């Protein structure tokens, strides 16, 4: 009976692992949600929502993004771009496996491209939302959220994640502030 029970539990556990379940906190605000909101938001005064959206499009074009969606009624703008991911740190063990693979296949295609597990490109996706500050005229709050998918040379997905790095958002808002200024000056 004991053996049977252990076997049943083991089988149950093994099958459960195969059946990935929704994390409990998927639709709950994380502890860092407020902090993230601050990192991802900036307030602009003395502008219109159209000026901010135009300035944002300008910055995104400067940065090589393609605009995927704009809905000015809701102040929503989404964009994406594909960029190199080669300067990222590569995973040693995966590379080691590739090298082994190379040796096994008698050095065929063992140049740089052979390292199938090395990161190749990343797709960056972002949404920018412009909301009016209802207590102040001509004041808008801009919130940006970014994600990325990193692909390996083999074409497999290496990782997907939400970008939470404050420096990334800071860099974007620096450019947006300049662009908003240029937009207002009509440059």
């Amino acid at each position, binding site marked *: 009976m004991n053996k049977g029970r252990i076997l049943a539990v083991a089988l149950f556990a093994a*099958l459960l692992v195969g059946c990935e379940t*929704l994390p*409990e906190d998927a639709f709950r605000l994380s502890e860092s949600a407020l902090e993230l909101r601050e990192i991802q938001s900036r307030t602009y005064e003395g502008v219109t929502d159209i000026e901010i959206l135009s300035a944002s499009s300008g910055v995104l074009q400067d940065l090589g993004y393609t605009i*995927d*969606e704009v809905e000015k009624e*809701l102040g929503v703008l989404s964009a994406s771009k594909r960029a190199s991911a080669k300067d990222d740190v590569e995973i040693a063990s995966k590379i080691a496996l590739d090298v082994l693979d190379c040796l096994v296949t008698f050095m065929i295609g063992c140049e740089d491209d052979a390292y199938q597990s090395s990161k190749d490109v990343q797709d960056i996706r972002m949404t920018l*939302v412009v909301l009016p500050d209802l207590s102040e005229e001509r004041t808008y709050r801009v919130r940006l959220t970014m994600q990325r998918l990193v692909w390996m040379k083999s074409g497999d997905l290496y990782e997907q994640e939400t970008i939470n790095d404050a420096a990334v958002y800071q860099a974007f808002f620096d450019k947006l502030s300049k662009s908003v200024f240029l937009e207002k000056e009509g440059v």
Partner: protein
Amino acid sequence: MIARVLIVAMLLVVAGCAAPTAVITASGSQVELRQMQTREYDTLDKRGALRAVVATLQDLGFVIDKADFELATISATKLQDYEIRMTVTVREREGNRLAVRASARFNEEPITDPAAYQDFFTTLDKAMFLTLHEVD
């Protein structure tokens, strides 16, 4: 005895994985699904409601894929170790109310767990409260 335990374990696991399909195709459950995915709000401020939905999705780490004010439809994606795709619609209901309906997919499977939608609406409630009261 061992066989019986194993069969029960197997059935439980299979039921756990296959439930989404079963829920959608089984008769009568469509109503149930709609109920768990819908919440009504005492307002006719469609713009405010949609803005609250967008703010909530951003708070939860989603990127907006599509947004349409006229059709009051928002689609968004969350990328973590998993992927969640979600569509939220806002419709007018009788009695000066708005019904917000959310439907989501976790990786390859539709989400049919009422607790997940409950969590979403709990988060949305706060954003709705703020947005609608700022409007007043």
